């Protein structure tokens, strides 16, 4: 967790980089810690980077650069109770933090969590998983304007793009399954029969 801000009066801007808990994704950590990405973070006003490394936790120290360009960089392997707390640290809060960013692998659960909280989102599919439906999800989310899709080599550019673009809001226009279930079970007929 990035330390709570406001101490020295500086407004935080947090980026959470998550690789998922189950598969190894060291390339994402390495790319985000490379000089061009660190520069992109600085250029876009970030103050804190928080890495959720999962299986790749051991490689974090190897990638961590000596020169952090003034960024506060932290890492952890995973949080059993989920990433909610870490994600909330990326939200905009008056006087404490600016709207941050979530960089994640293309896991549907993580993406949904990020979108529910209204975070800017960069989705980097894990190419080593050979699971092309994750890539399809990332692609479609970018087409529909919910997220920025990126590969490892384009991450620095994607960070800038995601911070500039106004992403489509996710919450509020989703259909509910409950009435569909009611119709199948026959509640609509039930109600109609009583009205007749």
């Amino acid at each position, binding site marked *: 967790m990035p330390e709570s801000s406001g101490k020295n009066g500086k407004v935080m801007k947090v980026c959470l980089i998550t690789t998922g808990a189950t598969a190894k994704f060291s390339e994402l950590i390495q790319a985000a810690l490379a000089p061009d990405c660190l520069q992109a973070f600085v250029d876009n006003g970030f103050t804190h980077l928080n890495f959720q490394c999962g299986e790749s936790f051991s490689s974090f120290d190897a990638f961590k650069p000596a020169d952090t360009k003034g960024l506060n960089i932290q890492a952890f392997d995973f949080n059993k109770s989920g990433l909610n707390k870490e994600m909330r640290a990326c939200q905009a809060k008056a006087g404490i933090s600016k709207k941050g960013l979530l960089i994640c692998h293309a896991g549907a659960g993580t993406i949904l969590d990020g979108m529910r909280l209204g975070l800017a989102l960069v989705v980097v599919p894990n190419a080593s998983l050979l699971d092309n*439906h994750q890539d399809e999800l990332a692609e479609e989310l970018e087409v529909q304007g919910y997220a920025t899709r990126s590969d490892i080599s384009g991450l620095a550019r994607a960070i800038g793009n995601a911070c500039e673009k106004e992403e489509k809001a996710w919450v509020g226009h989703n*259909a509910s399954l*409950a009435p569909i279930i009611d119709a*199948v*079970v026959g509640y609509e007929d039930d109600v109609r029969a009583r009205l007749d």
Partner: protein
Amino acid sequence: MAILSALRLVVAAVFILLTTAFIASPSLYPPTKLSHIMVVLGSGGHTAEMMSLLRDINPRRYTYRTYIVSSGDGFSAGKAAEIEQMIQSKHVQSFIGPTKAGEFHPITGTWDLKIVPRARKIHQPLYSTPFSSLWCLIGCLRALHATSTTSTIAPHEYPDVIITNGPATAVMVILAATILKLFAVAPARKMKIIYVESWARVKTLSLSGKVLLRIGICDKFLVQWESLAKSINGTGAKRKVEWRGFLVE
């Protein structure tokens, strides 16, 4: 000769069962106020998504809720309690906590958890999959039957509806339900099947989805991306799958 006549007897018995199964589905199903919903939970992602799908479930209507998880899936078993917490807390004033499995609450009714054997363990050799699948199917048949005998909706009533979003266990539960209906053990109006393809599926169906769509035993088959619905339905007049927008939130 004896074998032949025995065979004839079996065929006749199956024929009678099959035909009565369909006769025994009266359209004048008496409207009931209380229903029994069965939810098949699967691995992490599926279960988390199911929680979102069930966000508007009215526990006053679905007063009996059964969750099916496969053995060894402690994560999903724990999630069932979390789903209950979400469902119950919206309908009880000064909510203190969800009821435990098997407990009865005057407003939110009751819920329980049934565990079935795994269809296929991770890294299980392929040749043994048919056996473990059969074992799982038998487990599902038993779980469904056990659910009916302990029904709190009405004595010996099967669940009204089964909801799933695609773990491997779901195929087995749905097959079991269909077998029970086909052989008239359960009435055809019971155990309506609603399949919701995972939100993560944008251009292709999951394996469970493909299998279930091919067999065609779902009463409602929903996908969450319009592009996916279009590519499956094509230009034909008959819609195989339905698209109503994103169902997760």
